[in-house]
């Protein structure tokens, strides 16, 4: 029987992880995601799992690497500066093909920044941010319900592709309290013949990312690239009143959530405005954006940053229509009215009727 509970966005992530069979969590306190380690410190022992508050975010990602190397479902969470610390570990997970879920409830930067919601970690999430030629699957929830659902999906994708997966939220989506419908996760765990389980009747398995022999690393990287290309089938996005939109707004996460109301405000004024909300930031919904660029007159990207996802939208649109941008770097959360006004500026500037 489905249950509806009134919980914090952060708690929804923790609950989704446990429901998906995650039994190993390694974390560290940092605002605005500390609810996640606090919740799991109580919940993990109850399900026979392990909660460990590590000495640093660096240690936490490496503990995840160890636990996941044995085939277990493991998670870590942090916020922007802590995610910066985890980049080396994430690169190693990708290179060694060890699955893991990393949750980033973004705060503002750069540097110590602040604790406001922000979308300034888009580049960090989709363009590395660690070293080497790798990709991380990135899921961007915009509600507490999506926190719950996408965290469960993150574990499935991590195991399916033997890759790190990032759940990218922000302070707003972490701290908000709203109803969440709890679900029962019934999927069978994926077999992991590569895992470190003790070399019984076989030679030892080696999980590594170092390949020194001539040509070996080249082959390894091409294999990884092929894997990342195959992730294109995991594209997820949502549209809202977009079919006949002349001005199509493009936004993810909390801005995508705020803009639903902005779209309604503008539709009430008779303006054909719609919304395309990417849910996977990698793989990016390139086809959907290209199709939208063919249909709409103008695309307008809105972000809580000085402009990061806008670059991917421009690339995907392939110049089929103009791509405008409004950014609000962190420090004050934009309201639906404010964003509707910005959309109208572009509506008028582009001569839309």
């Amino acid at each position: 029987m489905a249950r509806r509970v009134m919980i914090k966005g952060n708690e929804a992530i923790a609950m989704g992880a446990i429901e998906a069979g995650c039994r190993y969590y390694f974390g560290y306190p940092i605002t605005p995601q500390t609810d996640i380690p606090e919740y799991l410190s109580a919940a993990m022992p109850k399900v026979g799992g392990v909660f460990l508050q590590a000495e640093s975010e660096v240690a936490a990602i490496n503990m995840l690497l160890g636990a996941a190397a044995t085939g277990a479902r493991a998670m870590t969470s942090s916020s922007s500066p802590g995610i910066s610390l985890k980049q080396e570990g994430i690169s190693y997970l990708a290179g060694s093909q060890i699955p893991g879920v990393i949750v980033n409830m973004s705060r503002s930067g750069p540097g110590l920044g602040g604790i406001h919601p922000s979308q300034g970690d888009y580049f960090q999430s989709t363009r590395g941010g660690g070293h080497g030629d790798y990709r991380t699957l990135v899921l961007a929830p915009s509600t507490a319900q999506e926190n719950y659902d996408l965290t469960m999906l993150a574990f499935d994708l991590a195991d399916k592709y033997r890759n790190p997966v990032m759940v990218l939220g922000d302070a707003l989506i972490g701290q908000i309290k709203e109803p969440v419908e709890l679900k029962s996760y019934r999927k069978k765990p994926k077999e992991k013949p590569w895992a470190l389980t003790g070399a019984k009747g076989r030679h030892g398995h080696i999980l590594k990312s170092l390949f020194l022999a001539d040509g070996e690393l080249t082959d390894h990287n091409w294999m990884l690239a092929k894997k990342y290309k195959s992730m294109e089938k995991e594209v997820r996005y949502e549209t809202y009143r977009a079919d006949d939109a002349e001005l199509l707004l493009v936004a993810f996460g909390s801005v995508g959530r705020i803009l639903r109301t902005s779209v309604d405000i503008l539709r009430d004024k008779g303006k054909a405005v719609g919304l395309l909300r990417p849910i996977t930031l990698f793989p990016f919904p390139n086809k959907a954006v290209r199709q939208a660029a063919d249909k709409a007159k103008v695309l307008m990207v809105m972000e809580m940053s000085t402009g990061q996802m806008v670059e991917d939208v421009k690339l995907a649109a392939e110049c089929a229509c103009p791509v405008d941008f409004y950014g609000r770097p962190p420090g004050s959360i934009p309201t639906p009215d404010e964003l509707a006004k910005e959309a109208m500026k572009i509506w008028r500037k582009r001569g839309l009727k």
Partner: protein
Amino acid sequence: MSAKAKMKQVFDRPKSLKDVPYHYCPGCHHGVIHRLVAEQIDAFGLQESTLAAASVGCSVLMYDYFDVDVVESPHGRAPAVATGLKRARPDSFVFTYQGDGDLAAIGTAEIVHAANRGENITVVFVNNAVFGMTGGQMAPTTLEGQVTTTSPYGRSAATDGMAIRVCEMLSTLEGTAYAARVSVDNIKNLKKAKAALKRAFTYQTKGWGFSFVEFLSSCPTNWKMSAEEANARVGKEMADYFPLGVYKDVRAN
């Protein structure tokens, strides 16, 4: 009766070490230390239950030598990786194998906290007072006055501090159950090293807590010495500053 006596082999390669040549330099003690660890893995019957966390240094390729499950760790992070391995598979035997750059420089936080938590793992620490793999730079365990590629005028206490005595430092933590410093520069010391490793393995297999064995080791190439000279340095100069012995053995009678 003139039958020839039957010969029995009294020394052989341990089963858990692969029959491949080492890439280590002539006279490097890694080769001996690998063998001593593998001998204990065999003696305790752990080949099928060992999960090892390799580190970054000359021994980064240890997975090519130990025939057990191994995961590579980022530089310095092996104790954290080992924590993840052991927490996920508490019935496994988990060890790390780390050099002094890995453990005492970048990995200082990870080793201190794994020891402090009393993780039931075994850490094999190979201290040759220099960053070996990268060509002989100064390390936190480099001795005062020692010339390295980043201390060309000799390590200065005034600007670089003195070498860190890791074994002593870890012994101050409640979570450390067994800590010993050994060497393999002569047979007497090698026998004590075997005993220390056996004791460390006993600690883990009996669930008695965190065990740590520091091996003073030679690095002929980066010390710019012959294998013999480097071997002698371990026994004299190194052992003078880093005294051999058992520093903590909480279950000792």
